[in-house]
């Protein structure tokens, strides 16, 4: 299915967020996630499944002032 990953279209297979992160290669990376602008905590990722057209944001630590 096609979702929007960090603002870019992306074809993905896995539906469950945990699997999806693995599929996308984030592995153990220290990231936070939001689906359709709602925060998804690490603990909730297993219950969250994505559907066609969903928007997924994956963020990580970055420089800031």
């Amino acid at each position, binding site marked *: 299915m096609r979702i929007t990953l*960090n*603002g870019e279209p992306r074809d993905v297979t896995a539906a469950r967020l945990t699997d999806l992160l693995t599929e*996308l*290669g*984030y592995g153990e*990376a*220290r*990231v*936070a*996630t*939001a689906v359709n*602008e*709602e*925060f998804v*905590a*690490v603990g909730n990722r297993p219950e969250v499944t994505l559907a066609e057209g969903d928007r997924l*944001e*994956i*963020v*990580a*630590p*970055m*420089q*800031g*002032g």
Partner: protein
Amino acid sequence: MRTFYGTELANPLMLGTAGYPSPAILSEAFRASGAGVCTVSLRREAAGGAGQDFWALIRELGLPVLPNTAGCHTVKEAVTTAHMAREVFDTLWIKLEVIGHTDTLQPDVFALVEAARVLSEDGFQVFPYTTDDLIVGERLIAAGCEVLMPWGAPIGSGLGLNNEYALRAMRAEFPEVPLVVDAGVGVPSHAARAMELGYDAVLLNTAVAQAGDPVQMARAMALAVEAGRAAFEADPMEPRDMAEPSTPVIGKAFLS
């Protein structure tokens, strides 16, 4: 000494991590600054992206981490960002920015107070980037904030303290609240001045990161905040409109 949600800072300087020429210079600048806090943000991460190395770099600093919500323009955006930050950085601290204006990057005080309320109720320890408005300050405190961070001048402008009168009034109004001048500091004399007014810390980034020699400037800022605090504690002389000889007048020899 006032603490920040119970934490005492090693040094009343909060230093940003953005815009340094290189990670190595960032680390060196932080060491030179002895900063008590480092500020960070969250940005989109590609698989195997730079965020992981950055995080490793930050951890090595061994400092309390203050994530920000930079660039957020709405309560919802700021709140969601805060939640992501709490998870990623594993801290209750959040530097709450809700930007209201693009040219001045001034806070939207209405959204700021609302976001502060939501996050405080949710257990966050909010460091609000605010204006020098006393009433906004009161609202933020009522919303649960135990720290206030008024701006000195627009972010990245380096203009210093645009309204010293208002900053003094804020110090007088909130004697018990830790106050931080956040944004606008361009040179050490600005930072020293903020501390001379009785502020508890200064938060800055651009002035160090964009200096020709960030490490040297980081050191300069560390010295300046320490100088300003020491002066505040030392009870400075009152300015006088007339001169007063330092060398005693009596006992002067008659030689003409």
